């Protein structure tokens, strides 16, 4: 017989000990994990400052960090407006890509005929450079929101489909057989086994997709827009306004980073069982 413990606080053989770190320990851990990238970023900033301070490169080619920050502060309202536009296009594109991508993946996994039909088309759509079709989209859809969102969808769609197909196919076949012996229908098997099991894969695809969606939106803006960070950069470029160009670039990368972190946060929230197993490595799934 196995010794049975009814009091939960008595450690029992069989359950792996789970560390529950205190607040202080968590802060120390976070610091230990993040000091390296922070140090590297600071080093880059110092190098940037040193190069400009020593006037190794002419100021109109590379502005100093101070100048760039000054522009960001002076034109905060202007930048904020265009940042919001780009973020909106990015999010809209990302959400549409996710919905369409997940649906396409489910169809492809459940119907080999659909998979054989869709896959080559998908691959073809993926290998066309989005920058090359963006002008066409502007011609078709005008200067508004639509072409930017479409480019963002086109560019973000592929990783979503691929990761979701992989996830749905990676389900333990014994789990599916077990489900059949339980008398479960295809819908029940999908809802209770297949879909939740594929979520870790989906999220690794979503993290790639969200960063690509920013690129898509900006590419759309480059081709034809009167709003958004792509437009800001084009304008600054035309005026040789490098401080504004740098400011635009910084904000643009910030959007990508923030959205990535948000997706990762959602993953932790929705899949605690997955996150806790994955451990502390930064990139393990993609």
């Amino acid at each position, binding site marked *: 017989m196995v010794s*049975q413990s009814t009091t939960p606080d008595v450690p029992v053989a*069989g359950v792996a000990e789970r560390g529950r770190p205190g607040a202080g320990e968590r802060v120390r851990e976070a610091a230990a994990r993040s000091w390296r990238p922070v140090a590297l970023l600071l080093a880059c900033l110092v190098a940037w400052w040193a190069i400009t301070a020593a006037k190794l490169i002419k100021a109109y080619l590379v502005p100093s960090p101070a100048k760039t920050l000054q522009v960001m502060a002076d034109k905060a309202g202007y930048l904020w407006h265009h940042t919001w536009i780009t973020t909106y296009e990015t999010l809209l594109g990302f959400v549409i890509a996710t919905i369409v991508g997940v649906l396409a993946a489910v169809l492809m996994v459940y119907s080999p005929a659909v998979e054989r039909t869709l896959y080559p088309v998908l691959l073809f759509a993926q290998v066309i450079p989005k920058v090359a079709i963006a002008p066409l989209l502007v011609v078709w859809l005008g200067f508004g929101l639509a072409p930017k969102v479409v480019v963002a969808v086109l560019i973000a769609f592929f990783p979503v489909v691929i990761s979701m197909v992989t996830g749905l196919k990676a389900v333990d076949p014994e789990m599916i057989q*077990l*489900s*059949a*012996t339980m008398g479960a229908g295809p819908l029940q098997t999908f809802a209770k*086994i297949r879909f939740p099991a594929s979520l870790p894969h989906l999220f690794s695809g979503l993290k790639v997709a969200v960063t690509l969606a920013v690129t898509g939106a900006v590419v759309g803006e480059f081709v034809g827009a009167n709003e958004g960070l792509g437009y800001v950069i084009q304008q600054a470029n035309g005026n040789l306004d490098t401080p504004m160009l740098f400011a635009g670039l910084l904000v643009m990368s910030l959007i990508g980073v923030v959205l990535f972190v948000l997706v990762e946060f959602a993953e932790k929230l929705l*899949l605690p*069982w997955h996150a806790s197993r994955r451990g502390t490595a930064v990139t393990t799934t993609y």
Partner: protein
Amino acid sequence: MPESTRERGRVEASRGGSVRLEDVAVRFRTKKKDVTALRDVSLDVAEGEFVAIVGPSGCGKSTLLKLVAGLLKPSSGAVRLRGEPVTGPRHDIGYVFQRAALLEWRSARRNILLQAEMRRMPADRARARTAELIAMTGLTGFEDAYPHELSGGMQQRVALCRALLHEPPVLLMDEPFGALDALTREQLNVELNRIWRETRTTVLLVTHSIAEAAYLADRIVVMTDRPGTVAEVIDVGLPDERDYAVTMARPEFARATARIRDLLGAASAAD
């Protein structure tokens, strides 16, 4: 081997018992050649009987269980479960695999309850039955643990509870303890013997362990190498209630294990 004579109360069930295979053959077609996994397999398992199936790797033992569950169709021959021909996946069985196959995002209790949800069992009955099984398998205190927090033995206990939740008349086990360490395995063998006596379910157990087969089973089906067929059916002849150490020392146990070793040794030497 002739039909076993049951010494104790378990009667040969009416019309061929709980599980019946008649001249079953299974052939797989691969790209290069046809593979015969099973041929000429006939087997009759009485209700409440514990039958172990041993044989060399790849002799089609798992295939045999899948046939009974209706997850696989025989190329020829007939499979009957509780008197009815098996035509598709059967729901009146419990299935345990070598890997626990638990859902990582569900606690032990909710993994067990998956069986109830899929079958749309009444919630209160499912709850009560789960509690009963948790106590029976020594999972008390682990109900809310997630699979990754459980040891292999505990995970397999959860899988066993899940397979028993709907009180299936037939339990199919495919090397359920194969991935466990020897001590845990012994412990689970003892528990499985007790659970079998308490539930009176028919058990078909595929195993690689000769000792496990002899300790647990009423009868042992020894299979030959591919194409798998029944070499011999051994009557163990031990009482239902089996103390582990005492059973190991009994002459019936020694006789059964020696006979299996003979048969398996011959099977591999002939090839």
